[in-house]
């Protein structure tokens, strides 16, 4: 379904009238983003589905851009008067408040791709079906092991529709479904209490969780991690070889290089990657892309929040930095291609260049050989969050399931530990890349400037010759 202005009870002439308030001679670009979002959340704890929350949010944001300046205002009231006030505020950044060029809609287009056709809208999933799913998860996780004492799970869906109207006469919109199942288990053995978490989702419907018994698999995985952690020993401290498993450990790419390649930081030359296009920033085994066009993935979009069709962008090709990810403002100011990465959390937020699905392409090594090649090191397969200082390039990400590698074999599980490195250096130390590229299960949320957007990552098994592991045991 492609939304239209009538879904917001708006008339085209009223919207244009408001938008024309924002145009002035020295404004380069003006747009209005009209959004409506319905979220439904049910959650379970103590074997009871006792929380159900629904929220409906709608509003519009108006932006005017002049040179490097952005004026932005929003309103959660879609009245013509409120839209005009917002537009009036947005153009404040223009030096000269005159010289109107009335806007007319000349390109009324539908997204050219349909990456998430759902047979049933997420808003049609009954509360009973959601409740039933969580109850089954509780049973499955507890059945995994009697030491599982607490199971918490939540199922969230979000159905967003939006339209973008801009001063180039484009009117385009999209409907973006998003769902996620998240499970946390606590395992207890005497005084030893440990936690395990797992989940998944994407721009997928309810059937996704039932196919291949996926939801039950997620439940067993959360339980398994908690049980593994019961036997965890102290993590080592110091510099050592690190093998990352496939999938979600791709958060390495997101933190180490992804943020540093967002165009805004590079235009301002505040990123450790500024001016490095064409230079070697990784070993030649590393080819990394950002791809917003993968069907049903959490980080995918038919069009970005500026109406640009998303694409696959080569970030690093055989170790060489190829380019940045862009939104309209930064692409124009830097004179580089528009990649369809202009994103915003909602109508209350401004557009920023953001990642979609960021992953490394498969290599040729056998994952077993990669582990065998390490005498003593760390094998990390699951992670919590990460963070980066894009200016110094230093980044961290925290392992939640990791093992020691001793004499080429995976041995004891270790407690969670933070890994730290330097973005422009860490991938130069990648000496083996597996043939087992895997995307994550669809749980990633990226934060920037206080805005959260859904993202995906992916990684084959890789070996990093040395990284600092922040454990507590002297190695």
């Amino acid at each position, binding site marked *: 379904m492609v939304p239209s202005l009538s879904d917001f009870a708006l008339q085209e002439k009223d919207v244009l009238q408001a938008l024309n308030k924002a145009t002035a001679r020295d404004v380069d670009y003006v747009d209005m983003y009209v959004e409506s979002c319905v979220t439904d959340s049910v959650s379970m704890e103590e074997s009871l589905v006792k*929380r159900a929350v629904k929220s409906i949010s709608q509003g519009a944001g108006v932006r005017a851009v002049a040179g490097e*300046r952005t004026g932005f*205002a929003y309103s959660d009231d879609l009245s013509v008067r409120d839209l005009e006030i917002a537009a009036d*505020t947005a153009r404040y950044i223009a030096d000269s408040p005159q010289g109107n060029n009335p806007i007319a809609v000349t390109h009324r287009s539908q997204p050219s791709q349909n990456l998430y056709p759902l047979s049933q809208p997420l808003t049609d999933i009954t509360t009973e079906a959601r*409740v039933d799913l969580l109850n089954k998860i509780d049973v499955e996780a507890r059945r995994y092991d009697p030491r599982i004492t607490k199971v918490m799970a939540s199922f969230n869906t979000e159905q967003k529709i939006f339209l973008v109207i801009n001063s180039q006469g484009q009117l385009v919109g999209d409907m973006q479904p998003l769902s996620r199942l998240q499970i946390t288990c606590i395992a207890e053995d005497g005084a030893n209490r440990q936690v395990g978490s797992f989940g998944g989702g994407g721009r997928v419907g309810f059937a996704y969780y039932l196919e291949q018994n996926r939801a039950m698999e997620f439940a067993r995985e959360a339980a398994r991690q908690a049980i593994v952690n019961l036997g965890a020993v102290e993590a080592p401290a110091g510099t050592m070889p690190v093998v990352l498993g496939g999938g979600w450990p791709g958060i390495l790419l997101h933190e180490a290089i992804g943020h540093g390649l967002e165009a805004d930081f590079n235009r301002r030359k505040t990123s450790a990657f500024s001016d490095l296009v064409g230079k070697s920033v990784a070993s030649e085994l590393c080819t990394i892309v950002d791809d917003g066009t993968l069907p049903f993935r959490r980080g995918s979009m038919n069009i970005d929040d500026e109406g640009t069709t998303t694409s696959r962008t080569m970030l690093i090709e055989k170790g060489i930095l190829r380019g940045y990810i862009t939104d309209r403002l930064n692409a124009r100011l830097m004179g580089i291609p528009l990649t369809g990465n202009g994103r915003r959390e909602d109508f209350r937020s401004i557009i920023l260049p953001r990642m979609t699905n960021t992953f490394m392409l498969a290599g040729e090594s056998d994952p077993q050989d990669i582990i065998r090649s390490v005498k003593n090191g760390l094998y990390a397969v699951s992670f919590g969050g990460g963070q980066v200082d894009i*200016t110094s390039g230093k980044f961290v990400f925290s392992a939640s399931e990791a093992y020691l590698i001793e004499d080429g074999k995976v041995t004891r599980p270790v407690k969670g530990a933070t890994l730290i490195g330097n973005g422009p250096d860490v991938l130069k130390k990648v000496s083996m890349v597996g043939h087992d590229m895997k995307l994550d299960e669809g749980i990633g949320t990226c934060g920037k400037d206080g805005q959260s957007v859904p993202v995906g990552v992916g990684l084959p098994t890789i070996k990093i010759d040395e990284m600092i592991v922040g454990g507590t045991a002297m190695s």
Partner: protein
Amino acid sequence: MSNLPSTHGDRFPELAATVLKRAKALGATEADLLVAEGDSVSVQVRMSEVDRLSKAREKVLGIRVFFGKRSASSSTSDFSKASLDRLVSDTCSLARAVVEDETSGLPALEHMVVDIPDMDMKDDRQLTVDEEIDLAKRTEQSAFSADARITNSEGAECSAGYGSVLLANSHGFVGSYASSSYSLSVSPIALDSQNGGMQRDYWYSVKRKFHELDSPEKIGQEAARRTVRRLGSRAITTQEVPVVFDPETAKGLLGHISSAVSGYSLYKGASFLLGQLGKSIASDLVTVIDDGRLAGGLGSRPFDGEGLPTRKNLVVDKGVLSSYMLDTYSGRKLGMASTGNASRSVGENPSVGATNLFLSPGSYSPEEILKSMKRGLFVTDLIGFGVNLVTGDYSRGAVGFWVENGELTHPVEEVTIAGNLQQILKDIEMVGNDLEFRGRLASPTVKIRKMMVAGH
């Protein structure tokens, strides 16, 4: 509320009564409702030019209904009669679909706040966009003027916000309060001429009263000082040494305590402080207080998210865990009374949150604390989320200074510090006298006897 630039506020009590009446008509046995409204203007200046100007205006209504022991919540920003009617009936259907929860329900009427004190949380000072631009420009300019090595900037930001909250429930309770906040910050970047690398830091001031904000000059100079002192950073070797947290990073430790004493973490078994009430959890130098009624405090509120009076709670008394932080629901789960810590996002069930949480100051100056360290790490920034609140395992990226014989020798980066919070809290061996509120959490400088530092 008359000073707020409010367009709707006056009709909120009436709106609340209508919505509650509608819920009752649909069979709800109890209900409560929260309406929040806010206006804000913020300006970001970068390299002396306006980079971004944002103006926000919003309102949202959240309702929670009970059908006996079943409940559900919802929220909307559309206040039209048709939309609100639909919201109430959808919420009622949702509530009928979930299971009974014996613990659920509003707090008893006799516990609701009666006198709503004025806590000096609102300033009538309206800032014009041009004033904000000027303040942000001066702040950034001060950072550039302070040191020639400051060559770039992520910008300076000035913002002013005004908000009001109204809470009403089916007991007939109606309460409201208004607040304001002003903030000014800058994030300068310095170039390292040695290796061509860059360093960035940040400084800020945030207050409920405009005249209490630090001057742009003071903020800019401090930001510059914090940024250039990072130049020449390097890693150190892996070793176990004493670690001093500056006030900004020590606040993080308080945040972990706050999460671990939340009633929700406790009844879910997800806290490293489970079963520790009345026991020693930290060194006897540690006294932690949560004060919801601090005049002008950024975390202050006259009543909590359920309408119970806020108060001053002694959370840790000379090392002994003396109180959890609870709302009505988590309190009932643990067989205890609410501590007035219900925190509430509109449209969500209550949860628990600290108000103004601080570590009581000790007797040492920060200089004396550094002097006490023969070899160790002085931490001034932390990155990452490597804290497991279930086990207390702690491992985060750190930035700071290496200390030899009480003197700062060189800046440090690309290291981690690790330990377990249960031990870290017991290992606090010095607490500074430099407590200053710069937000909802505040801590003086703190010294930990030893932590594992991982580096080269």
